[in-house]
């Protein structure tokens, strides 16, 4: 939380050359893991994250099964080589917490009552971390769930906003997260206009709080368009080509 180093230069550019409202480059590939029922690989700036969905399938252990709905289980995990200093592969308290908020961010979008007595497992593996990995993970997991054909009310898109050098900026990167003043990750369902995840680390006054929240939601809407395109690409991209052949 040092505020001595400038994170925005005289031209209004951030450490990675972005403007205040610009998101990092985002690429999503759908269906990258053969064995999984649904999967997605996201590159969110330097983040490289895999999400795989298995299910709906039988619940083990059996006593966890719910008679009226499906059980959603999530695991967020960082590989030991994903960070600057090696990360112990055992789940940390941070990972346990993120797994929980991630599940709670995704669950509102899923029609779990359609799959009673079953379980859906969502595995998110961070291969390379670059700040905002929970948002990127939720974004990828949501695409993977759609890819698995799970009945959904909406797609969950996630994006953070924050404060650096006293200014509200969109999509905080690793340096900005460590040296900036505030980080607010948000997950949002664009069609239902509902927030499914909201966290904040750092100090914001009244006006900044509102501004930051609105800015994060705007970022989520940008992310959503990329999610939609990635899914369209997989499911309708080939069809468009076929039409051309005919």
């Amino acid at each position, binding site marked *: *939380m040092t505020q001595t180093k400038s994170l925005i230069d005289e031209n209004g550019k951030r450490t990675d050359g972005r403007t205040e409202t610009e998101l990092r480059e985002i690429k999503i590939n759908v269906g990258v893991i053969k064995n999984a029922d649904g999967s997605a690989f996201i590159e969110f700036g330097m983040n490289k994250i895999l999400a795989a969905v298995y299910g709906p399938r039988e619940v083990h252990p059996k006593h966890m099964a719910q008679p009226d709905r499906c059980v959603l289980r999530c695991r967020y995990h960082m590989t030991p080589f994903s960070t600057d*200093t090696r990360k112990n592969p055992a789940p940390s*308290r*941070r990972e*346990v*917490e993120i*797994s*929980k*908020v991630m*599940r*709670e961010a995704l*669950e*509102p979008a899923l029609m779990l009552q359609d799959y009673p007595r079953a379980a859906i497992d969502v595995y998110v593996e961070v291969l390379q971390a670059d700040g905002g990995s929970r948002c990127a993970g939720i974004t990828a997991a949501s695409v993977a769930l759609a890819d698995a054909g799970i009945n959904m009310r909406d797609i969950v898109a996630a994006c953070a906003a924050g404060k650096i050098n006293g200014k509200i900026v969109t999509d905080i990167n690793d340096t900005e997260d460590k040296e900036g003043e505030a980080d*607010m990750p948000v997950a949002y*369902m664009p069609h*239902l*206009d*509902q*927030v*499914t*995840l*909201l*966290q*904040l*680390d*750092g*100090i*914001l*006054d*009244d006006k900044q*709080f*509102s501004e930051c*929240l*609105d800015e994060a*939601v705007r970022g989520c809407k940008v992310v959503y368009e990329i999610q939609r395109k990635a899914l369209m690409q997989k499911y309708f991209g080939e069809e468009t080509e076929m039409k051309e052949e005919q």
Partner: protein
Amino acid sequence: MWDSLSKGKRLDGRNLDDLRPMEIEMGLIKKANGSARVRLGNSEVVAGVKVETGEPFEGLENKGALILSAEVLPTASPHIEPGPPDEETVELARVVDRGIRESEMLDLNKLVLVTGEIVYVIFVDCSVINADGNLFDATSYAAVASLVNSKLPVFEIRDGKVVDTGEKQNSPITTLPVSITAVRIGDSILLDPTAEEEACMDARITITTNSDNNFAAVQKGSTGTFTLEQLKQIAASAKTKGEEVRNKIKELMKSGQ
């Protein structure tokens, strides 16, 4: 409950934005460097501060180390079993920790003995002894109060060794973070939920403010959602209600506890 909420009243007679009666007792554990017991309705938490010296965290070589833990003791309810902390308890500890850390309640820069080598290590351990909802706030108030109550030993380096001089110093406290937790049940937003209300909740959110009445930390929980309007409304009540709780803690500080 639905029936009652539609009339703007809660099952225990409170209005939607009323907090339960709160009691704070400080300094009850003499063996700790600081301690506090908080009762928020029937939820009850004891927190204790212990101070040691040790190596600083990696990347934070010029700061003292703050380590916060929370445990829901098996005494707290019939549903708790002893064992390693579950997901909810891990979240509890991390949310309480976040409020204290992000508001920079303790000036950790003042807790360094040899930069990069030896620093003060402040342990704040919280034990929930009875659980009746809103453990986030009860635990947070207990942790904050125990730090307010704490006196740190004065360590010195003599011949390369850490020596306890036997003297005491006040903890370097800069601000008082206060968390306010709200839950949504249907369209109603309830502050300081009981266990019964938490069992019915659609979504939960905890917002921490500091002494300047700025926001320092937020955590949304549970599987429901909030609209932007609801979030902004809760943020506003977190400020007003947070200030009330803060004043209560300040009064206790003045009364010399």
